């Protein structure tokens, strides 16, 4: 466990020393407010809630999270530091989990810095703060899902650009899986079970149900097991790709 903490700390500090942290946070805050106030029509709606804010999160994550996750493993392999890391007395799972947790903690930090939006809505009206808290948690869980995909894609290629694109693409698939557009397309011919299964894998479906203010055990379990599955896949990929850098 102490190894995990050491790895998380090192990763986190490297976000800040490479300035990725500042750029990410700045862009995240700018875009999320722009979306909320302009595209989301925050004022025009005349409702004291944050759904215009949270509704855009999946789309925001779609290109911000891959930018964060693309370096997780690709950079280690490119610079050769992976050989150093994996010959230190730590297990591969510690390395994978540590890197993921650092990135996840970081998105949590970025997310928490959007608190002025929450203050605004509380100043303007009387929102359901329980629902807002649940939405924050849901948004963070969803970011974790994106990051876990990104971790795996980053392990797949030495090129950060490829990792970025692949992550974006797969994340898009999981976001869109719940869209009527996609479901209707399948609904016409696929068995209902498959359609249900697809809808169940959708980020949007789970996220939407959380933003309604109900953080159900089912949704929590979905995101956590989703993260676990992709981190497991990362483990397999890193293990498989180890030799190639030789």
């Amino acid at each position: 466990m102490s190894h995990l903490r050491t790895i998380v700390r090192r990763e986190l500090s490297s976000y800040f020393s490479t300035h990725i942290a500042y750029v990410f946070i700045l862009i995240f805050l700018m875009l999320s407010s722009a979306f909320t106030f302009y595209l989301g029509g925050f004022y025009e709606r005349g409702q004291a809630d944050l759904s215009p804010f949270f509704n855009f999160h999946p789309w925001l994550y779609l290109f911000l999270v891959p930018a964060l996750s693309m370096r997780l493993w690709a950079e280690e392999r490119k610079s050769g530091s992976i050989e150093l890391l994996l010959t230190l007395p730590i297990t591969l799972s510690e390395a994978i989990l540590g890197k993921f947790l650092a990135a996840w903690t970081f998105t949590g930090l970025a997310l928490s810095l959007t608190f002025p939006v929450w203050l605004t809505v509380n100043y303007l009206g009387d929102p359901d703060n329980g629902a807002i808290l649940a939405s924050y948690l849901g948004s963070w869980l969803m970011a974790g899902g994106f990051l876990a995909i990104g971790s795996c894609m980053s392990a797949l290629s030495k090129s950060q650009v490829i990792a970025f694109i692949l992550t974006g693409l797969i994340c898009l698939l999981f976001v869109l899986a719940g869209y009527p557009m996609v479901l209707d397309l399948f609904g016409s011919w696929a068995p209902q079970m498959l359609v249900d299964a697809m809808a169940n894998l959708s980020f949007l479906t789970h996220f939407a149900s959380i933003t309604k203010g109900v953080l159900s055990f089912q949704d929590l379990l979905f995101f956590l097991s989703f993260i676990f599955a992709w981190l497991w896949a990362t483990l397999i990929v890193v293990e498989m790709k180890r030799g190639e850098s030789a």
Partner: protein
Amino acid sequence: MIRVSGLEKTFGEKTIINNLSFSLVAGEILGFLGPNGAGKSTTMKILTGFLKPSAGSVSILGHDVLTDPVAAQKQMGYLPEGAPAYEEMTVLAFLEFIAEIRGFTGQQRRDRITDVVRKMSLQEVLTQKIETLSKGFKRRVGLAQAIIHDPAVLILDEPTDGLDPNQKQQVRALIHSLSKDKIVIISTHILEEVTAVCNRVIIISEGQMVADCSPSALEQESRYHGAVTIRLDNALCESVSQSIRALAEVDSVEVASALVGTSDLTVFGKQGVELYPYLNRYLTQQELVPLGLFQEKGRLDDVFRRFTVGQQTVAEEAAMQGSVADKEAAL
């Protein structure tokens, strides 16, 4: 002790390491030699648990690297080829990270870092980012992280590659200064390094061990071992080489041009002949005063080439060089 047995590694169709076995005991400093692509780095990667072998086993101080890599890795310090590090970190932050992973905290961690910083003379760059450092400093940072926990086994992949002569000397001094009960493996293709720091040599070629002995035994393998080189003025060269060639104890003479206006005659004796005193007496009798006269210990590069490219090729090349030198000398 380190025990490597029946090690094999294949990548697809290609065999990188083929049935490699050896063991090392405390106090041994092994020079691991071989041409580029012979499998040196791959072997080291397997020993340190980074790569898994296709077959065979590695045990480090009783810990099997395959089944219990972490226990084995605790005993080892490793400098990978090219000394990779987290470039965006400062030297101090990097060493703190390594020390912490190695299980040191608080005062102990500070002491460890102070110790390796002093040993590798890193004081002046401590707060600099690693990416801004020169190659020599980067290598020293890599060495510092490898020895921070005072490991019983030290594995260094080309530790002096790209360093200037002073820095090379420093690294060798460091290896010498390690206490005598450690196992050190150094891969290199700089042969002088082997005689300078190692007490055992293994040469691999195309993934197979082709020699395993002490550096001095290796020198004796050289056809130059016991040969005598005489440096002469070019004017004398032709006549002296012919008269020496005619001597009963002499097998052959090779001529190579040396400093401006001089040539080196390398004289090979027949089996069992003590050539140096014999030639010394002969030159005195002839009242010849050579510009230089010394006995060859053996040339490692010659042995290295013979082991790694085959005897035939080396003999042919030597003959070719000899004849070129003969012609040059004649001119």
